[in-house]
């Protein structure tokens, strides 16, 4: 049984995502010790520094999605099932930094599909309570674990369907955000395919730094950030960083 991490990385006009990828890959190699496949395009690949043994899959990203008015190439996550060469795949956003081996243990579980449904705000503001922003409980597609089997293939087929008719679903579920968010695409698909009942989840919250945190330092062990003149840090704990300026730290 093969296992590995699948990452998506496409530079945009405003953000050097390949810089974020390089940090992400280094930490995965140190702490998860599994094979890595990067889905990217040739323009981004040309800018990457050598990162050791990595598999690459080249696709042209679907364009048009935006985040805060800037290009946001996140519309290809629905192809993770086809693009992954592994029997068990951990899909990570490249701005999710594995400062610990926490996620490695989940490769040894029997669950077909796992996703977290809570985020923890490291600044103490509880700013990720998204229930008021839609009628559907959100999941965080930042971290997905799936096995290749018929059940999971149907989940991804549903993800593709939801993505195709996303504007309809955003109206139906009264989702405030009008840009494409994988979090909602997967939340809707999982609810639909599971008969509007529950589904299996990771039992932890994604520790997350909101976009208004300035990242002041990042090492192999942890990350320090500044929020309203207060500097805080965490070590040996995985962190999802929403401020894309981390590419320049």
């Amino acid at each position, binding site marked *: 049984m093969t296992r590995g991490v699948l990452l998506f990385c496409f530079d945009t006009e405003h953000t050097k995502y390949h810089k974020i990828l390089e940090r992400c890959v280094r930490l995965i190699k140190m702490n998860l010790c599994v094979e890595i496949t990067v889905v990217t395009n040739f323009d981004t690949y040309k800018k990457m520094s050598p990162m050791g043994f990595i598999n690459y899959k080249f696709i042209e990203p679907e364009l048009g999605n935006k985040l805060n008015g800037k290009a946001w190439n996140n519309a290809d996550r629905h192809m993770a099932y086809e693009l992954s060469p592994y029997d068990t795949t951990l899909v990570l956003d490249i701005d999710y930094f594995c400062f610990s081996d926490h996620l490695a243990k989940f490769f040894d*579980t029997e669950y077909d599909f796992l996703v977290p449904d809570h985020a923890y705000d*490291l600044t*103490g503001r509880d700013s990720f309570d998204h229930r008021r922003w839609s009628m559907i409980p959100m999941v965080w597609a930042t971290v997905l674990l799936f096995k290749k089997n018929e059940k999971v293939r149907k989940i991804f087929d549903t993800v593709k369907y939801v993505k195709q008719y996303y504007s309809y679903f955003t109206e139906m579920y009264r989702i405030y955000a009008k840009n494409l968010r994988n979090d909602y695409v997967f939340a809707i698909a999982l609810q639909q395919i599971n008969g509007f009942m529950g589904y299996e989840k990771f039992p932890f919250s994604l520790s997350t730094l909101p976009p208004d945190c300035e990242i002041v330092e990042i090492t192999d062990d942890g990350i320090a950030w500044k929020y309203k003149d207060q500097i805080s840090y*965490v070590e040996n*704990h995985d962190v999802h960083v929403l401020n894309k300026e981390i590419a320049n730290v």
Partner: protein
Amino acid sequence: MDIGSLKKQSDLSYDIAIAKRNALEKAHSRQIIVYNEHIFRADPQTICVVRTLKETQETFIVLDTNNNPVLITDPGDFLSKLIERNQESLNSYHQMYKTFENKGD
């Protein structure tokens, strides 16, 4: 106490509260273990249930974090792993907590 000292003390208290909160979240996260291909939380409740069942039964069923039933055939091994992980995570939290105590000096 002048307003400057009050603000300084308030900022320090805020820093400590955030650091403590984050350290506790980290400890909770570290308490998650995988056993028999299922996910469990090495918290006091799970440890107590396993220890209680172990006293009267050689094998028993417990629920994982997704409420799936799991047959435990080696309760001693399971219990020792739960306790080990629980204490490992709390020890790390304790070390962090000790650093808070000296921050106001």
